[in-house]
Structure formats: structure tokens, C-alpha cells
């Protein structure tokens, strides 16, 4: 007991981790739902529809299904590694999120910032460190399955990840040069302020090239279309997780989405000003934006419930309506709540935007060929990001050069 009192950090952190895990997990689940929906609409389908209103309970169902399916482990596989791989993948993916600040550090409880699990001085470096280990999940999975397709998939993905990690990192360095720090909050703070009083000073604008490079590399890092060769169904059945089933497969699945979230968060932090609002502080009405949004959602749900829903679905959507309206009212009426909610609100909205962009790409773009992938990564992406870095460095150093001759 006294041990705990000695180390409040631990307690608070544990609480925060638990909360974050819960939120993220659900979020992941519903991101899958979102993806399916969006793609369905892109392809003019309806997508999940029957499990709950608008298929809202679909993720739940999937989760249960994964739980209760038989967990097949190929007898020829290397058991230890075979089981280790998915754990590694998911745990690392989730660990990375622990470094993300979802809101300003100023919001504190027990002297500990609420919206960030660990505010590391060199957070970015750590993030990259963790993601860089993420490769093992895939590689080991491919190797330990001890079968051809997974091996190929594992090789491919590890090669691909190594290759694109380089340009990913380099494309970020430009931002670092501008921000002058590796700390996320620092980076975000460095984007505070406005050009011409209304254009936010996000690194997106000076680092547009870097941003594009980053997005591309990120997509490749997360093995998503158009870079999803490791699990290219047409070529490799399902790539590295061909042999995996039930919950282990689910873990890979979640890991992938967790990674998506991570890179989106990173993009938001580095280029889009993190939890900063795009509008000048002077515009007070933005404080009520989150609440208003929720209320609007509630209103829509109410109308939908009233008009389209039948029997049970009515109940379900009704619950959603109540939650939305209640949440909205809380966000507006509780004193101080609007300020507190600002950061997370903007941050999540930015993340959602980027995720939507991901899904959108998946819906539209075809898949690369492997050699194309490699040559693109090494011969186009890397040089461009390098050039971006060099130019940025020059621009930053130029005044010094001029001053000191």
C-alpha cells in the first residue's frame, strides 16, 4: 500500500492505461464497422446492416465469433513463436498509442495529465522505436507458420516495412527541424498561432511534401491497400496470417487497425496541429461545437428511429439517440466541460478524417506489384523525402548563414 502511495505515477498511469485500452478497443471495433460501411457505400452497397440498426452490433458479433471459434495451431509450426507473434503485434501496436497525447497536458488530475499516458521527452523517437519492432509480429508469424504462403508474406511484409520505415522517419524529420523537439506536446505547441490571423500554423503547410510522403509511407507501414501485399489474397491467400485462426487472427486484425490509428494520430500531431483547434481562440462559439455535433447526431438518430426503424432496432437506435443527446447536453451544460473537451474533440475529428482518407483509398486504388512497390519506395519516396528534408534544413539554417557570413 505504502509502495503505491510512494509512486502515484504508477497508480494514475495504470488507471489511464485501463481506460485507454477500453476506449481504443471499442474504437478499433467500430473503425472496422466504419470501414465496411464506407467501402460498401463507395461500391454502392449497404454493408453490414442486419446485426443491430445499421449493423451497429456487427463488431460485437465478430468479436464473439472470434472468441468462440476453434484455435487451430498447425502441428508443424514453431509453437512458441507462433503464439508469440500475434501477441507481439497487438501489444506493440497498443503500446504505441500510450505515447499519444489526446489533449493538452494542462488538464490534470492528481498532478498527472489526463489525456496522455506517458509524456516522454523524446516521445516521437520512442514511438518509432516501438513501431519498428512491430515488424516482428508479421515476420515471425510468417516464419513460424512453417508453410509457404505465410513465409512469403512474412518476407514481403518485413522487407516492405523496413524499406518504408526509412522514408517514413525521414519525412518526419522535416517537422522535427521546424518544431525543434521530439516531445509531442512540444511539437503541437510549436504549431500554435495563425498566419493572417486565421490560417493555423500547422506544419502541414510548409511540410506539404513531407506530409504526402508520410501518408504514403504510413499506408505502406500498415500494410494497407494499395500496399497490402503481405496479405494479398490473390497471390498469397492471406499472407502471413494464412494459418492463423480465431482469436490470434483477431489480434492481428486489431493490431492492423491499431497501427492505422497510431499513424493517423502521428499524422495529426505532426502535421495537423494535434489537439489544437483550427479556429482562432477568439471564436468562442467553437467551445460548443462538440456538444452541438452530438446533439445533431442525436437529432438525426431520433428522426431515423422514428421513421425507418422497426421493433428491436428502434430500441437500439433509441439508446444511441439518448447517449448522443445526453452526451451533447453534458458537454454544453457542465461548467468547464467545453474547454476540457476541446482538445480531444479536435484530435479525434482529425484522426477520423485521416482514417476516412485511408478507407477511401482502399476503396478506390488498385494494388501495386511487388517490384513496383520496392522501386517506388526506394527510388521515388526516399529521394523525395530526403530532398524535402534537405530543403527544410537549408531554409531553417539560411538566416544563420546569412547572419554569420
Amino acid at each position, binding site marked *: 500500500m505504502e509502495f503505491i502511495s510512494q509512486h502515484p505515477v504508477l497508480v494514475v498511469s495504470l488507471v489511464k492505461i485501463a481506460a485507454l485500452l477500453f476506449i481504443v478497443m471499442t474504437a478499433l471495433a467500430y473503425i472496422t464497422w466504419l470501414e465496411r460501411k464506407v467501402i460498401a457505400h463507395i461500391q454502392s452497397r449497404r454493408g453490414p446492416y442486419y446485426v443491430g440498426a445499421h449493423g451497429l452490433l456487427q463488431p460485437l458479433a465478430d468479436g464473439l465469433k472470434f472468441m468462440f471459434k476453434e484455435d487451430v495451431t498447425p502441428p508443424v509450426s*514453431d509453437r512458441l*513463436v507462433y503464439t508469440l507473434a500475434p501477441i507481439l503485434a497487438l501489444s506493440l501496436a497498443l503500446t504505441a498509442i500510450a505515447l499519444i497525447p489526446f489533449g493538452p497536458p494542462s488538464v490534470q488530475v492528481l498532478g498527472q495529465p489526463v489525456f496522455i499516458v506517458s509524456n516522454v521527452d*523524446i516521445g516521437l523517437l*520512442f514511438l*518509432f522505436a516501438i513501431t519498428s*519492432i512491430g515488424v516482428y509480429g508479421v515476420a515471425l508469424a510468417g516464419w513460424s507458420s512453417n508453410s509457404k504462403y505465410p513465409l512469403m508474406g*512474412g518476407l514481403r511484409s518485413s522487407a516492405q516495412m523496413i524499406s518504408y520505415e526509412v522514408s517514413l522517419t525521414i519525412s518526419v524529420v522535416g517537422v522535427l527541424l521546424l518544431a525543434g523537439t521530439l516531445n509531442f506536446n512540444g511539437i503541437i505547441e510549436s504549431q500554435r498561432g495563425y498566419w493572417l490571423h486565421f490560417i493555423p500554423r500547422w506544419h502541414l503547410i510548409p511540410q506539404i511534401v513531407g506530409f504526402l510522403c508520410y501518408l504514403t509511407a504510413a499506408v505502406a507501414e500498415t500494410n494497407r491497400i494499395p500496399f497490402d501485399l503481405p496479405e494479398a489474397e490473390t497471390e498469397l491467400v492471406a499472407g502471413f496470417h494464412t494459418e492463423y485462426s480465431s482469436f490470434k487472427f483477431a489480434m492481428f486484425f486489431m493490431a492492423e487497425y491499431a497501427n492505422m490509428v497510431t499513424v493517423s494520430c502521428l499524422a495529426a500531431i505532426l502535421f495537423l496541429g494535434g489537439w489544437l483547434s483550427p479556429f482562432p481562440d477568439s471564436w468562442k462559439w467553437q467551445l460548443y461545437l462538440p456538444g452541438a455535433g452530438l446533439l445533431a447526431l442525436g437529432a438525426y438518430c431520433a428522426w431515423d428511429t422514428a421513421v425507418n426503424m422497426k421493433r428491436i432496432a428502434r430500441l437500439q437506435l433509441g439508446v444511441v439517440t439518448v447517449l448522443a443527446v445526453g452526451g451533447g447536453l453534458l458537454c454544453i451544460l457542465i461548467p468547464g466541460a467545453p474547454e476540457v473537451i476541446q482538445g480531444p474533440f479536435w484530435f479525434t475529428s482529425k484522426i477520423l478524417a485521416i482514417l476516412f482518407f485511408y478507407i477511401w483509398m482502399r476503396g478506390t486504388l488498385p494494388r501495386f506489384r511487388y517490384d513496383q512497390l520496392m522501386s517506388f519506395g526506394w527510388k521515388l519516396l526516399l529521394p523525395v523525402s530526403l530532398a524535402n528534408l534537405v530543403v527544410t534544413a537549408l531554409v531553417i539554417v539560411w538566416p544563420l548563414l546569412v547572419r554569420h557570413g
Partner: protein
Amino acid sequence: MSLPFLVFFACALLAVVGAVRLILAREPIHSALALILLMISLAVLYLLLGAPFIAAVQILVYAGAIMVLFVFVIMVLNAGVEERTDFSKIAKYAGLPLAFFLLLWIAHWLAHAPAGSAIATGAGAPTVAFSTVELSEQLFRPYLFPFEATSILILIAILGALVLARKEE
């Protein structure tokens, strides 16, 4: 038993286990994994020593790049279980004992470090961490030349690797 000690011994244990596994494992992959485990625990120790930057680099470069390379190569070559040939006599009767002797000697020597000497006094978490800024100052001012030299070294290594691994048609 305060936290730093707890962390230290945990990591130390992990590291030693990793090293031993590296030796005993017959699958190269297992050895690699053991080594990765060791490296990560070392990274934590670096954190404990207040060198977060080095810790990050340790994971990023060692675990994240070098070991990935190892694993990758192992997979490419599909390196199977290593066959046990008999030890070379010298290794068995001279190398092993000597190595352990060396080990014990140094350990003993360090463990009985004269009290008050720099290495006997406490270090790590409570004291302030090395600032990354100062480190970079060091790296780019007094150690600039070696730094550049290493960059050249890396370049040459890349070229060498290309030349060596190229399939000769």
C-alpha cells in the same frame, strides 16, 4: 526494495535469460528472439540510467533494424536447426573455463569496488536524465568528425553489402 532495484533486477534477469537462451537455442530464430529480448531489457536499463535517447536508439536501431535484418536473413536462407558437431578441444578445455574465469574475475572485482568510488555510488533514476540536447551538442561539436566518419562508414557498408550480396550472373 525500491522501484529502481526492482526494475534493475527484473531487466538484468531478462537480459541474462536472453543471453543464455541465445546460447542454448538451436533454432537461429529463437536465438534472435532471445537477443531481442536482451536488447529491449537493456533499453529499459538505459532508461533507468537516465539515458532515454540511447534507450530509444537502442531499440530503434538494434532491435528495430539490425535484428530485423538478422531475422530477415534467417528467413531468406531458411536456416534450419544447427547441427551439433563436437566442440573443438581448445574451445572446450581452454576457452570455456577461461571465459568464465574472466567473467568471475571482473564481476568479483567490480562487486568489491572501493566504497565511495564513482562506480560504487548510486546512479540512475533519481538523478536527472542526460538531456538529448546536450548529447547532440557533444555529437555535433567535439565529435563532429567521428560522426561524419561514421556516416561515410555506413555508406561504404551499404555499398559493400550490395556488392557482396549481388547475384553474380
